[in-house]
């Protein structure tokens, strides 16, 4: 039988074994705990330092951005029109008493606006703005805006050398005596150095900007500019500060070991941010580390307490954020109320404006209606006279009959010219004449005029001198029809009164900028000339220089009167220089806005080529005309040219024919019983949109010839507007241009 060892006896005999067996593991456990805790503390310290540096770095970046924003704002101010206006006017020699003070006042207003801008906490972004001229003297100082320019700038600041196009000069400096940061931006006008714009940024604003970001205690934050602590001696001391703040990018612990100092420098400025953060004993290098082993359980409790404490901190932060959001919501509600009040006020103003506009339009409509009716009632019978005469002229006649009818035809055309002139004069005198500005290509319009005059001028054995400025804008905004009317009238007079020599037109760009050109038109001839004492008279209505001219050359004497009034409506003045026997020179200048290239592409597209041969190709055409004479005239012309014509006598019949037949185009009178031409066009275009039918060319043939009539036609969808009395050549051209022929009718 084996005897089992007596362990209790052994331990009693060798008690050190018990001590070693229990003590060594205990000692090892304590050493292990101490070492583990020490390592953990080192890691925690490194994390704490890194977090603090990151936090301080974020504040530094924020401050850097803030200063960059202020510098950009200052540069934008230096580029403002108010600044360039002062320097330009000063360079022109304007005195303060006569002109220059307005520039100073504009500058002062601009400065005032900049100085009112503040941080949410109320600190101004700029406390002072100063404009210096090239010699360094003060132009305007917001601290003393009433002082005349010319005083020396006394603040200790030296301007850097002026910049150039590639690197505009700018500078930043700190003025410790006044505790301001000074930002400077160079002022350049037309690439010339004119001076400096200076802005004073209080250091209190910088501190407020950082404190607002950090929510930190004011006495635990320092900003330094190079060697200077911003805020100076008034800054509260945090206690046991080290002799020197840490270098940028480093940390240090205060002498009482209660705070960690972290320092970071801004990227673009010699500005550093230093923060002091409470350590709360978390990372102190304690000499009694072994106590941790003894207070392990207490540590557990502390950890739990820490968790509870962190939860409380998070709850507090959440409450603060909720309070801030509530404030924002209140601000938004107040802003919404202000906007609603503003909208209500603007609606009232719009209502008042609409009322005033309606009243003015009613008066204008009454005047326009009279002129439109008068025009229509004269032109309609004249259309019959001229058209029928032209048709008869196209038949076989004996010489005497042809000569008599040609006299009648020319007399009718002269009467039409007279009526056009008189209607223009009537419209001008009644205040009903309106310009119809739209985009147009001036070079094209001038070329059309040249072509229309060329045959007549050559037939009379005259020479045409045509000089158009090559810097003329491609597209402009104006009333080309009225400009053409003026030029054709003056050039027509020149042809009429010139028997040999030259007739010339010169168009010159007298002044221009990016948005407008000032065009000078000059018409010269080598004709009979006008005596000095008659030169004012020819611009009066119904007057010519000499009654014998009326007998010899014809004319009513209205043309130049209308021209002068039209030019005046365009903002210019028609003037005359002339000598008897040597010729005349008419001149006027108008200012026209330039249409930018992108907007002009569509308008400047070349028009399709025009075929002018009446018998080019037959079409199926609808004609709507209520006047019997005009019906005969139009139908006879169209059938003579080989077109297939369907005739209707009013708008209802025309619309019915359009719905039930296929046409290549329609010629519509505007003033018809039951349904007028405008309404026919409007309803037909609506029908096309609803059914997807191809667009039918529509041409208005009407005695309503006022500019607003043509504009209305374009608005409702007409493709062309032909005035009565009908010009047969123009009618043929319009059909060729707007109405493609149908294949089935090709001969």
């Amino acid at each position, binding site marked *: 039988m084996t005897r089992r060892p007596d362990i209790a006896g052994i331990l009693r005999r060798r008690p050190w074994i018990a001590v070693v067996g229990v003590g060594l593991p205990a000692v090892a456990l304590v050493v292990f705990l101490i070492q583990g805790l020490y390592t953990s503390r080192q890691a925690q310290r490194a994390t704490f330092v890194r977090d603090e540096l990151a936090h301080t770095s974020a504040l530094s970046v924020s401050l850097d951005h803030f200063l960059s924003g202020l510098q950009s704002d200052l540069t934008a101010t230096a580029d403002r029109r108010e600044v360039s206006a002062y320097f330009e*006017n000063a360079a022109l020699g304007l005195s303060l008493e*006569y002109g220059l003070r307005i520039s100073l*006042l504009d500058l002062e207003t601009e400065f005032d606006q900049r100085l009112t801008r503040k941080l949410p906490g109320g600190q101004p972004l700029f406390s002072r703005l100063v404009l210096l001229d090239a010699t360094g003297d003060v132009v305007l100082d917001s601290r003393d805006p009433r002082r005349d320019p010319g005083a020396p700038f006394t603040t200790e600041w030296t301007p850097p050398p002026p910049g150039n196009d590639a690197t505009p000069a700018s500078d930043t400096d700190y003025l410790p005596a006044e505790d301001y940061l000074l930002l400077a931006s160079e002022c350049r006008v037309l690439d010339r150095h004119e001076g400096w714009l200076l802005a004073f940024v209080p250091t209190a604003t910088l501190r407020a900007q950082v404190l607002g970001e950090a929510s930190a205690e004011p006495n635990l934050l320092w900003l330094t500019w190079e060697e200077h602590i911003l805020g100076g001696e008034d800054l509260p001391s945090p206690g046991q500060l080290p002799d020197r703040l840490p270098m940028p990018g480093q940390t240090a612990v205060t002498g009482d070991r209660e705070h960690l100092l972290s320092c970071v420098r801004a990227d673009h400025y010699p500005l550093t941010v230093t923060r002091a953060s409470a350590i709360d004993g978390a990372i102190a290098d304690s000499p009694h580390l072994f106590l941790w082993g003894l207070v392990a359980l207490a540590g557990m409790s502390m950890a739990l307490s820490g968790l509870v404490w962190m939860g409380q901190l998070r709850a507090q932060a959440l409450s603060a954020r909720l309070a801030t959001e509530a404030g924002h919501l209140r601000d938004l509600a107040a802003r919404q109320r202000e906007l609603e009040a503003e909208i209500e006020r603007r609606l009232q103003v719009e209502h008042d404006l609409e009322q*005033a506009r309606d009243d003015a339009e009613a008066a204008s409509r009454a005047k326009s209606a009279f002129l439109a009716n008068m025009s229509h009632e004269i032109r309609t019978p004249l259309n019959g006279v001229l058209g029928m005469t032209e048709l008869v002229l196209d038949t076989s006649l004996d010489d005497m009959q042809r000569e008599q009818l040609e006299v009648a035809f020319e007399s009718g055309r002269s009467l039409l010219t007279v009526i056009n002139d008189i209607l223009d004069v009537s419209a001008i005198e009644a205040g009903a004449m309106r310009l119809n500005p739209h985009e147009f290509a001036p070079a094209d319009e001038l070329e059309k005029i040249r072509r229309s005059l060329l045959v007549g001028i050559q037939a009379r054995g005259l020479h045409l001198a045509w000089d158009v400025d090559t810097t003329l804008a491609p597209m402009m905004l104006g009333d080309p029809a009225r400009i053409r009317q003026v030029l054709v009238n003056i050039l027509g007079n020149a042809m009429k009164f010139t028997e040999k020599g030259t007739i010339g037109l010169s168009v010159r760009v007298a002044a221009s900028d990016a948005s407008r050109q000032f065009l000078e038109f000059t018409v010269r001839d080598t004709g009979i000339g006008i005596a000095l004492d008659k030169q004012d008279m020819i611009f009066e209505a119904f007057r010519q220089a000499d009654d014998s001219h009326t007998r010899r050359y014809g004319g009513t004497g209205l043309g130049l009167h209308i021209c002068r009034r039209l030019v005046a409506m365009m903002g210019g003045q028609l003037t005359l220089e002339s000598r008897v026997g040597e010729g005349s020179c008419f001149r006027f200048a108008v*200012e026209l806005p330039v249409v930018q290239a992108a907007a002009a592409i569509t308008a400047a597209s070349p028009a399709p080529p025009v075929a002018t041969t009446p018998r080019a190709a037959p079409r199926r055409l609808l004609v709507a005309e209520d006047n019997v004479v005009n019906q005969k005239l139009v139908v006879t012309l169209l059938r003579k040219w080989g077109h297939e014509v369907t005739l209707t006598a009013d708008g209802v019949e025309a619309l019915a024919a359009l719905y039930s037949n296929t046409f290549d185009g329609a010629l519509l009178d505007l003033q018809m019983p039951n349904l007028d031409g405008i309404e026919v066009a409007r309803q037909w275009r609506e029908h096309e949109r609803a059914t997807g039918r191809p667009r039918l060319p529509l041409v208005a043939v009407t005695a309503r010839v006022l500019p607003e009539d043509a504009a209305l036609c374009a608005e409702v969808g007409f493709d062309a507007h032909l005035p009565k009395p009908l010009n047969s050549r123009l009618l043929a051209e319009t059909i060729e241009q707007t109405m493609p022929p149908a294949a089935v009718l090709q001969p």
Partner: protein
Amino acid sequence: MRATMILLLAISLIAVPAMSQTTVQAAPRHDLPEIQAAGKLRHLGIPYANFVTGAGDGLDVDLVRLFCREIGVAYEYVETDWDRTYSDVTGLTFKRAGSEVTITGTTAVRGDMIAHGMTVLPWRQKLVNFAEPMFPTQIWLIAPATSRTAPITPTGTLAGDIAVTFKLINGVSVLAKPNTCLDPKLYDLAGRGAQVVNYEGSLNHMAPNLLGGMADLTILDVPDALVALRRWQGKIKILGPLSEPQFMAAAFPKDSPKLEAAFAEFMVRCRADGTYENLVRKYYPGVWAYFPDFFPKGGHAQ
């Protein structure tokens, strides 16, 4: 025969719309009671500087609108021109020789009051009654920036400045506009050696026509010059003054005393409550710098 037909046709077309004008025997009264009965006030205006911008607003337009609201009538803007404005408000046609005015007949009344930056001049006072001065002005001499003529160096007195400025017009062409405050005869431009170029277009286009080469120099009043100085920045320069300070005011027919009195009371209230000052600041922010006596800084306009 042909000439007779043309004449008859011309007379028929022009005379019909004017018939109602030529048959008026005497201008009907259009004082405050008649205006309130009609329910609207017709404001005679001409687009000029920032008094009537032509875009539906302006210092005088805003002011007359407020006046209409106060007397309970609708506002109606009636555009006129510098030759016709007095006839439009009085119903009288007239001839003027210097400061003498002769009534020649009657015509239709188109408006109830004038307000478009009209300068108070003696011959105009014979036709209409002016309200209390509403706006100060002065005549300045203007040149293109490229002109060799340099601005004057102020002498310290207005009389001295005017004398120096007048020397600049000798022998050069000067743009002016008859029958307005820029009438060359008011300042004897021709008598002082200038070659006067009479301008017939809008006052607002005088500066661009100067730049277009119509004349060497032009005269402008201060409100228009302030507008032109901003619009044509760097292209024009002010040489100096040609007149003592003048004043602008609204004008009324001499037989509309109640309307005139109502407007005077309205203006007193506008000046007292700051309404007028706010309107002047809106349309002429720079005028304070030139007429500190008329518009004291921070105070109400006189």
